[in-house]
């Protein structure tokens, strides 16, 4: 087997972004992907932020299999049977670059993206698992692929293996994550005719909508749900920390069934047919617990690096692409000096720190911990708030003043105002 300039493990957004950047500069790059084709095993909720992609492939939306661009956002607080929502509709997002937010289906999108790298000269080995790194005097110098003649060498390796980071753990760069640091998300793609989607969510043409559900999305347990509109399907899903799923003795799929059976959600999915069921782990490690990102001859990018913004923005793929490009740029620099040691690659960390990736990760770094300390955000508070609203809007023979007093009293009986305000302050700081 020939030696490559760079080996990349994983053909997801991070790995492919790195590959594309490197082959465009004339490097020989091998990408190893365990799936049948790039994208076959890749999954996310459904909204791609594309600031980095648009730099890599300008006006990519003209060519890429994108579903809809997001012009509408809706944030809901659910109790067991009611909803309070705020909705935004931005006509300005109808123009290029479409606010860099698109719904996509990853099996199609990642395949397209990987094809771009392949067309530019990257060699992609599919259905090939990488079992381990090869070391030479402590420096990572190659990989062991699970095939005959599977020892392949390169100057530098980029590990873009994703959330289930067996290699990164094996190399001692990352601890096994704790159950509350991993979100298990289940998702269904539910088909509906195009016109139905556009009427139901009040959309024109290729406009799309992202709906996020908090509070009692899953019976008051910690977790949240979403619905994103594709062309002729909806991405519907729900995520919960593994610790919570375990405590409640549930299966990830039970959560999704609970979410789908919520009276508010049911109406939005009416008449749809489930086409696809899938699940994914999302690493919400927290800023303090990020893995070591470089060692001699190796860089960690994407989900394997824990680059996920757990806040309202739910950003992951864009960060992954940034990290891929950043790793590639450092590799190009390191080639000048021929120094692929940890020291030679340290510019990668600096590049991440100077960018939105580390800034946002630091800003939202303790969301998982904060949230797991405040289960009341998901049950007591939404119930109390919505009960208050219900009382406020209940029509009766009482004077409105009396009505308001009763609703307010009902609220105060359920929650302590001081603690409620303090929790809200903490939650706002952590999530918004």
């Amino acid at each position, binding site marked *: 087997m020939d030696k490559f300039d760079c080996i990349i493990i994983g053909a997801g957004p991070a790995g492919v972004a790195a590959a594309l950047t490197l082959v465009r500069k004339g490097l020989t790059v091998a990408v190893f992907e365990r799936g049948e084709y790039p994208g076959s095993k890749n999954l996310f909720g459904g909204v791609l932020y594309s600031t980095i992609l648009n730099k890599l492939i300008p006006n990519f939306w003209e060519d890429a299999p994108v579903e809809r661009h997001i012009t509408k956002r809706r944030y809901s607080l659910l109790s067991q049977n009611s909803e309070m929502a705020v909705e935004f509709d931005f006509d300005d997002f109808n123009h290029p670059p479409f606010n860099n937010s698109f719904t996509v289906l990853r099996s199609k999108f990642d395949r397209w993206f990987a094809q771009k790298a392949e067309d530019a000269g990257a*060699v992609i*080995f599919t259905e*090939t698992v990488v079992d381990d790194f090869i070391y030479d005097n402590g420096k990572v110098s190659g990989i062991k692929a699970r*095939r*005959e*003649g*599977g020892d392949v060498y390169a100057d530098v390796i980029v590990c873009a293996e994703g959330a289930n980071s067996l290699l990164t753990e094996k190399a001692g760069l990352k601890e096994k994550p704790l159950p509350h640091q991993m979100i298990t998300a289940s998702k269904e793609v539910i088909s509906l005719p195009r016109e139905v989607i556009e009427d139901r969510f009040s959309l024109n043409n290729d406009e799309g909508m992202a709906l996020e559900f908090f509070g009692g999305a899953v019976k008051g347990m910690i977790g949240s749900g979403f619905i994103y509109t594709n062309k002729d399907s909806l991405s519907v899903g729900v995520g919960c920390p593994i610790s919570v799923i375990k405590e409640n003795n549930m299966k990830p799929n039970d959560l999704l069934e609970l979410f789908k059976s919520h009276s508010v959600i049911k109406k939005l999915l009416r008449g749809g047919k489930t086409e696809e069921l899938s699940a994914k782990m999302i690493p919400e490690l927290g800023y303090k617990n990020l893995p070591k990102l470089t060692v001699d001859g190796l860089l960690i990018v994407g989900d394997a690096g824990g680059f996920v913004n757990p806040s309202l923005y739910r950003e992951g793929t864009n960060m992954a692409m940034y990290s891929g490009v950043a790793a590639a740029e450092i590799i190009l620099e390191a080639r000048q000096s021929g120094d692929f040691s940890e020291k030679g690659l340290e510019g990668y960390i600096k590049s991440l720190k100077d960018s939105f990736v580390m800034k946002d990760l630091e800003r939202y770094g303790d969301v998982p911990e904060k949230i797991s300390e405040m289960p009341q955000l998901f049950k007591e508070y939404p119930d109390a708030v919505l009960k208050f609203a219900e009382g406020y809007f209940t029509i009766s023979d009482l004077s409105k003043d009396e009505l308001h007093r009763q609703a307010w009293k009902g609220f105060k009986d359920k929650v302590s105002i001081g603690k409620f305000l303090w929790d809200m302050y903490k939650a706002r700081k952590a999530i918004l």
Partner: protein
Amino acid sequence: MKIIVCVKEVTDTAVVLKIKVDSPEIETENLPWVINPYDEYAMEESLRLKEKHGGDITVITFGNERAENILRGCIALGADRAIRINDKSVKGRDSFVTSKILAKAIKNIGYDIILCGKESVDYGYAQTGQTIAEFLHIPCISAIKKFDVFPSNKEAACNREIEGGLEVVKCNLPAVFTAQKGLNVPRYASLSGIMKAKKMKIETLELDTLDINPSDFKPKIKITNLSYPPKRTEGKIIQGLLPDTAKELTKNLKEAGLI
């Protein structure tokens, strides 16, 4: 020894197929395509033959550009040459048309042993191998589970499974053999094989170079209708506690005439 392996691209059996609304055809857009699993056994057997007796392997398919992927897969495994006969100008096709065209191409290449899958998992007519043999006027042994070649005698022996027993059959070479499941366990491609396959150019053969009458392209059979298998009726869950549930179950089974 010249070994020919005929392969076909089929849709992955794991996917749910949709029938076109306006014609008895399968909706083929966005489907995953793979090599016909029986052809994988044929391919593996060719590699074992080559390892044992030497020779070269030509893998051939009659299909569109997409089908080059399965040819590349065969190159990665160790085929020496890959040929795609372009099916662009052929409208309808059945086993007759495919066999006629393959036979013609194979004749031009030259052959000692022709290996096919015993059938394709999509339509499953199980005719192509036999019909190729007929057009080439050579023997065909179908659904083989063991294969031995005796180059010095120009002979081959095969095991076939028959109802209640095993049959050992011999024939003279050249001949066509169609592979049954169990003939071998196909190997995985090596990394260097995959590399080689990525770089290798697939030869494309246009039909007009094959000297075939246009009448030969007319299928002999025509699909007039395609329909879905009958839907399974919904199951029934009996809820409650024993012994009531057992009684209820017995009652239900009796009503259904099952006991």
